[in-house]
């Protein structure tokens, strides 16, 4: 361990980070850029969360109370765009920036200047998107799916929406290229592909997905733009176009996008559960194949979002069964996490608690996904709150909990200090209780027929909506505890290099906090072997 510490601090001791704002504006350091991604993501999490509070305030009781229906629709649209592209995706890119070079023994990302550009495009993109709130006609209100012809009714905000989506896409594609190039070319000599940690593997697969589908979204919104301003009729029935084609193209992007947001979460949980079970991950290689299978299947299931649009029976059958197939590799993953814990010497620090909640609650989201995959049943569930419950279970106690788990897990490595464990546990329990209070009643609302994306509803839905709103405010407030944990993170006890008793991997062989420059000399075989065990 001492040798490793000496190796990694041999070079570049003469210069640390630049001083002042220049450090952040012009940084090409993967740790600085990772930190900026994570802070940006947290900011967007609160912005998107504030919009969720507007939505839940309006829906707390029947009738129209606070906002007009147009603004309500803007809130649902902007909440989704911000949470998907501004909060969850950048959080995982931030984690990738920080951890992938450390985990594979690389000194930095392969394309550091492009890395800087990838990040700084994001604040511009979201600045543009948020500015639409103040434009004539208001912010986009046609839903994050941007279906034509409805989305073409957007006011002055329309070209700004399209431009910001393009920017988000460019940022994601550049980030994905960087991850792939880094993993393929910058691994320590002894680290073969199959030896890579699961977080690195899931990110490699995620990056392939991003390369394949973000350009598809860009193509779809480019066609929307030309339909609106350049006289084309890609999606306009009056000009011989087909609005359903947009839905096919959008969901060819949109379904893999779901896996873009969950595969890195699988990677995080696959790192944390072995650490706190003090056992190696059960079935590492099968986890890799399962993640790859999920990624492949994600390309052939898109039309399950469109059962009610109408398609041939054979099409319905194909997309129904292909969707159900995803349960097999996902089941392999859940089985392996449980098998890793089996007879392990488990302890329940905050990262482990979030990971355990992930396994339970993501699985609930997975099962409701299976229900939605059944074409005849989906015709009943479609566009109801059951769908809202389903994808929020996948994305909040799924993706967001995994991000929280990762933040707690690696925070001591980033800051060099242990966070406040009591505060962390309070944050976990409050989040877990309130997330279920928010989203579980939505299953009942959906099954009872409450449609989604409406500001008012029949009085029969009142009680469950009130419960959901109370839960949402509780969940929102609980996240302030997370901010308190981060703010106080530098006051805790000094973290050891290894931080957690059961941790394995190259990232735990560098000092805490991780020096500004690491692995300028690739890790030696002995150190790597210890880390791989």
């Amino acid at each position, binding site marked *: 361990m001492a040798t490793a510490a000496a190796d990694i601090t041999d070079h570049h001791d003469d210069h640390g980070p630049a001083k002042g704002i220049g450090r952040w504006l012009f940084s090409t350091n993967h740790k600085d850029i990772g930190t900026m991604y994570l802070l940006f993501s947290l900011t967007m999490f609160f912005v998107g969360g504030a919009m969720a509070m507007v939505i839940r305030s309006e829906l707390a009781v029947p009738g129209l109370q606070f906002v007009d229906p147009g603004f309500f629709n803007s809130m649902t649209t902007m909440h989704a765009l911000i949470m998907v592209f501004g909060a969850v995706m950048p959080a995982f890119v931030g984690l990738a920036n920080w951890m992938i070079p450390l985990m594979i023994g690389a000194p930095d990302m*392969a394309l550091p200047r492009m890395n800087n550009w990838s990040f700084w495009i994001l604040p511009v993109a979201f600045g543009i998107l948020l500015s639409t709130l103040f434009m004539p006609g208001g912010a986009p209100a046609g839903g994050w799916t941007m279906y034509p012809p409805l989305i073409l009714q957007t006011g002055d905000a329309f070209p700004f929406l399209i431009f910001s989506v393009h920017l988000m896409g460019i940022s994601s594609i550049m980030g994905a290229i960087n991850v792939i190039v880094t993993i393929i070319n910058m691994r320590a000599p002894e680290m073969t592909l199959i030896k890579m940690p699961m977080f690195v593997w899931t990110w490699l697969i995620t990056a392939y997905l991003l390369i394949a589908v973000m*350009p598809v979204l860009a193509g779809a919104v480019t066609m929307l733009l030309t339909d609106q301003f350049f006289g084309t009729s890609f999606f306009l029935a009056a000009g011989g176009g087909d609005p359903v084609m947009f839905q096919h193209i959008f969901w060819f992007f949109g379904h893999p996008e779901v896996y873009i947001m969950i595969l890195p979460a699988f990677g995080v949980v696959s790192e944390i559960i072995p650490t706190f079970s003090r056992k190696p991950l059960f079935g590492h290689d099968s986890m890799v194949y399962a993640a790859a299978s999920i990624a492949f299947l994600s390309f052939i299931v898109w039309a399950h979002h469109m059962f009610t649009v109408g398609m041939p029976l054979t099409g319905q059958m194909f997309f129904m069964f292909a969707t159900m197939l995803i349960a097999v590799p996902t089941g392999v993953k859940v089985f392996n996490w449980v098998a890793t814990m089996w007879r392990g010497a488990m302890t329940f620090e905050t990262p482990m608690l979030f990971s355990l909640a992930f396994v339970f609650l993501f699985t609930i989201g997975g099962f409701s996904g299976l229900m939605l995959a059944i074409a005849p049943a989906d015709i009943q569930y479609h566009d109801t709150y059951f769908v809202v419950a389903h994808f929020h279970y996948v994305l909040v106690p799924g993706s967001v909990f995994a991000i929280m788990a990762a933040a707690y897990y690696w925070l001591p490595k980033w800051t060099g200090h242990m966070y406040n464990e009591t505060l962390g546990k309070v944050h976990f329990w409050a989040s877990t209780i309130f997330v279920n209070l928010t989203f579980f009643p939505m299953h009942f609302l959906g099954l009872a027929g409450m449609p989604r994306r409406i500001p008012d509803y029949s009085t029969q839905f009142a009680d469950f909506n009130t419960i959901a709103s109370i839960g949402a405010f509780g969940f929102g407030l609980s996240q302030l505890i997370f901010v308190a944990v981060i703010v106080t993170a530098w006051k805790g006890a000094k973290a050891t290099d290894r931080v957690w008793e059961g941790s394995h991997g190259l990232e735990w062989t560098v000092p805490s906090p991780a020096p500004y420059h690491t692995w300028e000399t690739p890790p030696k075989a002995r150190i790597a072997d210890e880390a791989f065990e």
Partner: protein
Amino acid sequence: MNDAERKKGIRRTALIFGGIALAFYIGFILVGVLQS
């Protein structure tokens, strides 16, 4: 792998995946052109 080989590999991988991304972008717009 020496530094020159690594740099060559980085450039090659970046170009391949950048090219794939561009192909998907143009390809799906072409799908739209052919369908409309």
